[in-house]
């Protein structure tokens, strides 16, 4: 059975490699993904900061389309998309009145039948860590991979439920460990990177993301593992600015969880799109004997 896949806008731009590596990894795992046809942007933060109805209607159109396509579930790799899709789904599930109102706005009925998941809980629940372990051909020995969850994967915990503990989530740590790497405990797992202030208040993003890199370095991490294009953009693409602002060049590779998996599952380095990063992971991977 095919799983519905919602790539999100960044997957076609600044986070191309997340999309590329996710598809490769799913092939390795024998998972068939089916894109939601003609999907639209979830609205992200600007929608909920402008109109509550818009913030529910934009994601709901995608859910309605997926249902119409005959899908039972919708999986996305972006934390922000996941957050908006899940919040919309839960909100209309709770309130029939809201569902009617938003269905009228969308013009396509949503019948609340979908299971909305993020790639991370999809891997841990639908695929399972045991199966994942079996598929590993190149265990990530001696790799210390700090898992960064950020905000929208874990909060608000009543609606967004990938992990039982929003303050110290461990679901990604479990995946990373199944790949043979070490997932250190560290202080900034769920601290905010500045998220949507990326362009409008870049100074804030540079400060907050700098703190995250510093904490990962302090935990002696070889790389930071992310599951969100926005976290990635702030932590990877802003590193040279962080270096000039803080006077410390962390040169810390930021890898999508799908990329790390790809390496462990034996996908060729060239096919994962890792060379598209601003901070190269090549040296680290070479040092660990992984390429």
């Amino acid at each position, binding site marked *: 059975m095919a799983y519905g896949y919602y790539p999100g806008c960044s997957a076609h731009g600044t986070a191309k490699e997340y999309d590329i590596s996710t598809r490769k990894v799913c092939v390795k795992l024998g998972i068939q993904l089916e894109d939601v046809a003609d999907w639209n942007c979830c609205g992200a933060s600007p929608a909920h900061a402008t109109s509550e109805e*818009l913030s529910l209607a934009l994601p709901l159109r995608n859910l309605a389309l997926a249902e119409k396509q005959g899908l039972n579930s919708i999986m996305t790799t972006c934390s922000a998309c996941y957050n908006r899709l899940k919040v919309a789904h839960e909100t209309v599930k709770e309130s029939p009145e809201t569902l009617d109102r938003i269905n009228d706005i969308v013009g396509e009925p949503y019948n609340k039948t979908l299971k909305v998941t993020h790639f991370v809980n999809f891997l841990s629940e639908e695929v399972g860590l045991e199966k994942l372990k079996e598929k590993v051909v190149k265990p990530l020995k001696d790799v210390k991979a700090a898992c960064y969850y950020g905000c929208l994967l874990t909060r608000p915990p009543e609606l967004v439920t990938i992990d039982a503990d929003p303050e110290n989530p461990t679901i990604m740590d479990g995946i990373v460990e199944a790949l043979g790497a070490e997932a250190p405990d560290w202080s900034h797992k769920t601290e905010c990177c500045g998220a949507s202030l990326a*362009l409008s208040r870049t100074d804030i993003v540079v400060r907050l993301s700098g703190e995250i890199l510093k904490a990962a370095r302090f935990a002696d991490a070889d790389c930071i593992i992310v599951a969100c294009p926005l976290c990635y953009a702030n932590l990877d693409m802003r590193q040279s600015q962080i270096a000039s602002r803080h006077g410390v060049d962390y040169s810390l590779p930021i890898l999508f969880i799908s990329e790390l998996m790809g390496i462990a599952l034996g996908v060729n380095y060239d096919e994962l799109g890792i060379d598209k990063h601003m901070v190269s992971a090549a040296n680290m991977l070479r040092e660990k004997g992984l390429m």
Partner: protein
Amino acid sequence: MIYQLNANVRNFGETISELSGVDISTCYQCGKCTAGCPVVMEMSHTPNQIMRLIQLGLKDEVLSSPTPWLCASCETCTTRCPKEVDIAKIMDTLRILALKEGYKRKEPNVVAFNKIFLDSIKNNGRLQETKLAMAFNFKTLQFFKDMMLGQKLFMKGKISFSGDAISGVDAVKAIFERSKGFLDKGER
């Protein structure tokens, strides 16, 4: 600072509770929201101060504060509040109300970013990142912002001047037309 209270005290608090669906009266000023806020050092009013100002009905003070615009929507406050006050939701409500009522933009770049972002979705169905960054720089007169980064991204094949669009763009446009709370009248 000395605040002058008036007869509208109750009304503003009630308006916010009604619009957000969040009972603001239960906040007892423990300050946990502020302690966990990642952007608090940039704020002239901390999140708990905003909550208290709402309770006191100080509408102008609240709606002209930059705080809601600096809020990164990380939801740490909402997650940790011992009284289950959805503070992040209140920040959304304040942003929407401030736009509607034409309060002066204390963080004009954030307002500009949101608008350009939504325009991109309205016109294409999807966000076109490259065009968003260019339009934002143009609108905020920062022509050279992130130019070096842009060049590097171009080399990595991540810059696209054509951009994604969907065939259901009219359906998305209709969603924008029908959604309420979309009334940016500009500064009064």
